[in-house]
């Protein structure tokens, strides 16, 4: 059955009302780069669709050490901001020009792996999401937002309104490995944020991986390996080995699970080496 209604709310309030009225029968999309291909192919056949392009969620504000990005901030806009360099770097590895003009921050949170190469950077930055519904709003850390493959903590009637990104205090790195240099699905993507003490030992480490699990994920055990230790070749190698052990890679047209796991070792090592350099 063809799409019966396409709604284009002009505000968050209108969007939440439509969502409350139609419930889960309403397919929500922003830039359309994930939903529209599925609809064009008849894989997804929604009766009702809501587009968020005009809902006023295309905003960016900095204050109190946090940058607040509205959910429909485009990848191109993220490429043009200076507040969070890691996000600019990540966007440089996503899609082509057209996809960056259309794809949004909020949409990328729902992109099934191997897509999600912006979300992995947001995860390394300890981003929190503002989820809004007619009932009110709540803040959920991105690390708790993902609950499984294409499953999130988003409740019925809720929308992701905003991503709150703490300004990075330490060093960050981003490494994406694909079969081509540009516009390519990931074999593995690694984003890190590491804070070190004056003596060079690690005070805080976040290692986020994409394309090697059901959603972008934190390599928590690998992070623990680094805590209180200096970033030496030995500690980096151990963290990379542990990250490969704890991830949960899959096989697709791009790479096998076996190969992805091997590449986690290589690219976590490279991401941490660039922090140590």
């Amino acid at each position: 059955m063809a799409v019966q209604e396409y709604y284009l709310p002009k505000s968050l309030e209108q969007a939440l009302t439509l969502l409350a009225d139609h419930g889960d029968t309403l397919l929500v999309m922003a830039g359309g780069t994930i939903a529209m291909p599925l609809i064009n192919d008849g894989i997804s056949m929604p009766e009702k669709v809501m587009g968020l392009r005009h809902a006023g969620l295309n905003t960016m504000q900095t204050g109190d050490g946090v940058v607040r990005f509205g959910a429909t901030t485009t990848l191109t806009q993220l490429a043009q901001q200076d507040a969070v360099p890691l996000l600019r770097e990540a966007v440089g590895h996503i899609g082509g020009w057209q996809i960056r003009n259309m794809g949004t921050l909020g949409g990328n949170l729902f992109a099934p792996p191997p897509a999600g190469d912006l979300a992995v950077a947001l995860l390394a930055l300890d981003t929190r999401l503002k989820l809004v519904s007619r009932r009110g709003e709540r803040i959920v850390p991105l690390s708790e937002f993902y609950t499984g493959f294409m499953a999130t903590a988003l409740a019925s009637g809720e929308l992701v309104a905003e991503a709150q990104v703490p300004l990075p205090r330490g060093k960050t790195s981003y490494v994406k490995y694909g079969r081509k240099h540009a516009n390519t699905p990931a074999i593995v993507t690694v984003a890190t944020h590491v804070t070190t003490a004056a003596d060079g030992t690690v005070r805080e480490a976040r290692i986020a991986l994409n394309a090697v699990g059901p959603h972008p994920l934190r390599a928590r055990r690998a992070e623990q390996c680094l805590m209180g230790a200096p970033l030496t070749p030995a500690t980096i190698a151990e963290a990379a080995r542990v990250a490969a052990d704890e991830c949960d890679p899959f096989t697709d047209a791009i790479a096998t699970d076996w190969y992805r796991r091997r590449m986690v070792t290589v690219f976590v090592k490279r991401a941490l080496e660039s922090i140590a350099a």
Partner: protein
Amino acid sequence: MTSRIVAFNLNGRDVEVIVKPLTTLQAVLREQLHYTATKAGCRQGGCGTCTVLVDGEPMLSCILPVEDIAGRRVVTLEGITPAEGLHPIQQAFFDHYAIQCGYCSPGMIMVIKALLDRNPNPTREEVMDAIAGNVCRCTGYEPIIQAAQAAGRQLSAR
């Protein structure tokens, strides 16, 4: 089902179309308005041949609901082709053998137009970055890169 009237500017001319919900700009251009320079390739947002400029920004018309761009300025390949002869980018494609089957050319030319509008003398790397979302399966990209740079030189020498 609610059909709607959508008005936008196409190549300098105001147009109005009646569309069913979620009709793409590509379908409107090709099937309703018969502007067929904009090609239908993968319909997945993956090949770039449906690229048009919306307020000067390259976008993929196959995954863009036309209602989203109501009131905005859309430019297609027809819009930059002069009544007589060729646009300098088209001429450069011709001169540098950047067209073989021609299916990617409309998208390539539109994205190169957007690039040259911003940066008349792009480096090789800048051209490669600009066309990263456009797939060519026959000429190879080298003649296209050379054509883009030659067109830039031609346009900035004017």
